[in-house]
């Protein structure tokens, strides 16, 4: 049987910690299996080759400078398929916390009197600038989900994101609800798909996958108020990863 040519894959990173790419190195043997199915032509973190001819671009990080906008548009032009990879690329992630205060303040805090030499704009997810074909959520991405999305891409099928809350998976994992434990949690409004990773490990959900399409945000707010949280803290929970929800809830909650 004649082998089909392997699609060429390129990795790119914008503003982020590069932990998403590292998840590939953490796959162990699966990574080698993967190289049988796709040809990796550009992966700056571990390669010096810089292939400019690629079919699939896997892009992590947020857009946060004018130059980023230019670069992501060029990548979009070359790639047949563009995958937004990880929280920073899909929902702007923790980078967008800086959007909540004026950029001038952020620049001054970190860079002092050299602040005016810094080029920065509000941190944005990729799809604010270009069309995105596939989304791999989570901070860091969950390896079983990375593989599921890659399978869909290779089979030419869409990958529908779950549109139910983390609570569904959390219940199936038989965790005791954080609220039952006198704690709090973003699980009820956060999109599932991580197999309730953080709660399984005794922590709470921080909302790194973004909110479900129609979160019962006001209901959630009422519960948190009942549990003694202040409005500012509730907003901070909602905006730790989800700046895009911030403007909406700034108005609705107050």
């Amino acid at each position, binding site marked *: 049987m004649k082998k089909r040519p392997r699609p060429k894959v390129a990795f790119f990173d914008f503003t982020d910690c590069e932990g998403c790419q590292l998840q590939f190195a953490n796959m162990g043997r699966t990574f080698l299996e993967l190289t049988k199915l796709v040809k990796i032509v550009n992966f700056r973190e*571990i390669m*010096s*080759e810089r292939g400019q001819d690629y079919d699939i671009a896997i892009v992590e990080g947020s857009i946060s400078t004018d130059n980023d906008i230019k670069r992501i548009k060029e990548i979009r032009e070359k790639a047949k398929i563009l995958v937004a990879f990880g929280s920073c690329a899909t929902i702007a992630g923790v980078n967008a916390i800086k959007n909540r205060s004026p950029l001038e303040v*952020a620049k001054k805090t970190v860079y002092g009197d050299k602040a005016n030499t810094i080029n920065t704009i509000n941190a944005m997810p990729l799809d604010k600038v270009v069309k995105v074909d596939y989304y791999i959520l989570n901070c860091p991405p969950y390896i079983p989900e990375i593989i599921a999305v890659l399978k869909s891409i290779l089979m030419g099928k869409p990958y529908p994101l779950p549109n139910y809350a983390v609570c569904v998976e959390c219940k199936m994992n038989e965790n005791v609800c954080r609220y039952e434990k006198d*704690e709090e949690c973003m699980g009820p409004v956060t999109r599932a798909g991580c197999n309730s990773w953080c709660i399984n490990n005794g922590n709470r959900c921080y909302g790194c996958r973004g909110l479900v399409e129609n979160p019962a945000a006001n209901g959630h707010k009422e519960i948190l108020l009942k549990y003694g*949280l202040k409005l500012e803290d509730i907003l901070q929970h909602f905006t730790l990863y989800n700046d895009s929800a911030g403007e909406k809830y700034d108005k609705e909650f107050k």
Partner: protein
Amino acid sequence: MTKNSSSIDTKNVKIDVHYLTRVEGHGNIVVDVTDGKLTKCEFQVIESPRFFESMLVGRSIWEAQHITSRICGICACGHSLASIKAGEDALGIMPSDETIMLRKLLLYFEQMDSHILHIYFLVAPDLLGVKSVMPLIKTHKPVVEMALRMKRMSDYGGEVLAGRHIHPISYVIGGLTKLPSKDGLKKLHKLMLEARKDGEKTVKILKKLKFPVFERPTQYMSLANDEEYAMYDGDLTVNGGNRASDKNYRKVFTETVLDYSRAKIATINGKSYAVGALSRFNNNSDKLNERAKAVAAELGLKAPCHNPYLNTVAQLVEWVHCLEESIVIIGKILKDGLNKDKILVSSWPKRSEADKIKYKPNTGIGCVEVPRGSLFHEYTIDETAHITQANCVIPTNQNMGNLEDDMRKIVPELLGKKTQEQITLGLEMLARAYDPCISCATHLLDVKFING
């Protein structure tokens, strides 16, 4: 620009490596030699600024660990631990000895994970004359498989201990939110015993590779303590001299803004200094365990070592040290078990108690040795335990001045002997030897090109 980069020109060399590869984050190397005079020699950081220190302002101290682990995907555990230590210092919380033992263990796994990534994926391709690990999959498949297996072992360690290695979940202020499972620890213990063989093979491989010969004595800073090879805690020392508390780090070194590069560079007594595996080795090699000492001897690494390229060798020595220490600790846990009452905490104060806790405005400092060197987090909190000021000092920032001083010494040494192409590779390898982690380097400024 010089016309032919593969010919030897003693007078004019212009190097502009845009987006240095096989490092974490975005950096450029720019060198300008005109008429035999070195006019420019810079390692430029072009990573988009990330503003973590300003992002932390106004956030609760209880989520600082969650946020700051996102500074770096490689050193996520190190950032978590520095953050937790700073938070505990500010809140006046003392973790139990069991908790500290588990933290040391997590740090050992992070050292192993990062070092193996650096040795095999970032450095070895240069020494084998290829551009990346990819062609090695065909030519050296068993070695690549071994490298991935070693990487996976340490990553699995993070998974067993903290839920995951990248952005750990269960390590929080005061303790852990979940105990590592016994089954996981058993499997990990077995994998570690098996990894000894891979370690021995790696020593053989590294022994055959030829590292560039270059020497420049400098100031080597690291933590040190009397009990052990310091990673999780200790006092700061420079070249093994007088120790200073890590709480006084601002007195040990200063961060200054240098005009020519517009980057913040840290100095000790006005001079650049190095942090990382080689500094730790130079200051503390007598505290290494026996197996690690044997490996250092086999690879010919002796303290003090003044060749920065050999940082990679020091990393392998540390890998062996961390593996052996971890085998002992996990063996002990499997035998004695863990006392959950001394370890388990919730990640935030319980809701019903949250309003009753009285906080005192305070400043806390936390320092740990991460793979690339000493990492500092400092937070000031108000009476609601929200952060009013934050500072993170990253190893890569501290190494930047030292790297540039190395470049300034090495370029004239190579001039007229090597082609521009060879000098470029030599400088790239030098930068990579420091294992720079630029995403972390939150202090550094954007730099404009002169020779673009």
